[in-house]
């Protein structure tokens, strides 16, 4: 699987994501700088990594969402290329409009850096196919603005369409309906606050994140 990781000024999980992708796919992803206007030819998967793009100026993800490369990412997503946005990447995807809602300051105001338990709400999408329905998994979180909010009608719609991919088992940050990760209406764009790329090998203290990338690889190669 040919993958690309987008790099903004202030990204800091781009290398973690690249290492995870290389381990799972056996192929180094292309690192794509935010000023690029095109993605590498034949890219089959795009990762928008965590970090503090543009220093979180204005709103988390707001500046990155308007960078040249995100137009190319939006076009690719429209063609059905799988896109994952992790943490700051999720914030970027909501700011571009690829995913509904917004991520606000954590309700408790504190930065949260710890492991959290999640439930796989929908194990039928591109990113969760390797998990069991309702499986409980542990991913770490590391965010200040992870409080997912959308209006009630939007929340009802994404719930009704099975687009909540992951839900927190405890409400750590104030997120509406404990939502930790959602997919777009065509199911090829996932945004989530927790970090699957940080639980890939036993030395990380867990491997629950590995199956997200393995499941994706299997689908893309199928």
């Amino acid at each position, binding site marked *: 699987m040919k993958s690309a990781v987008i790099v903004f000024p202030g990204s800091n999980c781009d290398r973690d994501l690249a290492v995870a992708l290389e381990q799972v796919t056996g192929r180094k992803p292309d690192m794509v700088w935010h000023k690029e206007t095109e993605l590498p030819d034949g890219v089959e998967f795009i990762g928008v990594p965590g970090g503090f793009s543009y220093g979180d100026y*204005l709103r988390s993800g707001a500046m990155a969402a308007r960078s040249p490369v995100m137009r190319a990412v939006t076009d690719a997503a429209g063609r059905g290329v799988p896109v994952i946005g992790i943490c700051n990447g999720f914030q970027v995807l909501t700011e571009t409009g690829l995913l509904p809602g917004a991520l606000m300051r*954590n309700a408790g105001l504190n930065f949260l850096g710890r492991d959290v338990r999640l439930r796989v709400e929908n194990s039928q999408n591109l990113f969760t196919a390797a998990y069991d329905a309702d499986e409980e998994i542990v991913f770490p979180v590391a965010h200040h603005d992870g*409080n997912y*909010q959308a209006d009630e009608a939007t929340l009802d719609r994404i719930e009704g369409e099975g687009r909540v991919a992951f839900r927190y088992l405890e409400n750590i940050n104030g997120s509406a309906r404990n939502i930790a990760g959602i997919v777009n209406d065509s199911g090829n764009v996932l945004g989530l606050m927790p970090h699957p790329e940080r639980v890939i090998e036993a030395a990380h203290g867990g491997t629950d994140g590995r199956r997200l990338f393995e499941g994706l690889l299997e689908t893309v190669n199928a």
Partner: protein
Amino acid sequence: MKARVFVTLKNGVLDPQGKAIHHALEGLGFSGVNDVRAGKLIELDLADGTSDADIEDMCRKLLANTVIENFRVERAETA
């Protein structure tokens, strides 16, 4: 020509920052504060002739996230 853009959270959107400020005010002994909402003020220095529609476009495309925020523009011809 200058314009000021006020970006505020929509009604009903929880404002953790406002809550923290409220709490701190109470801690300082200001007991008469019912609620605090925090927002942003963005000052724009614009070319003469920039239209209201242009400014509104800036607000919708970048300055405010209309999922959670409202904006209001105040123009000051001489500032």
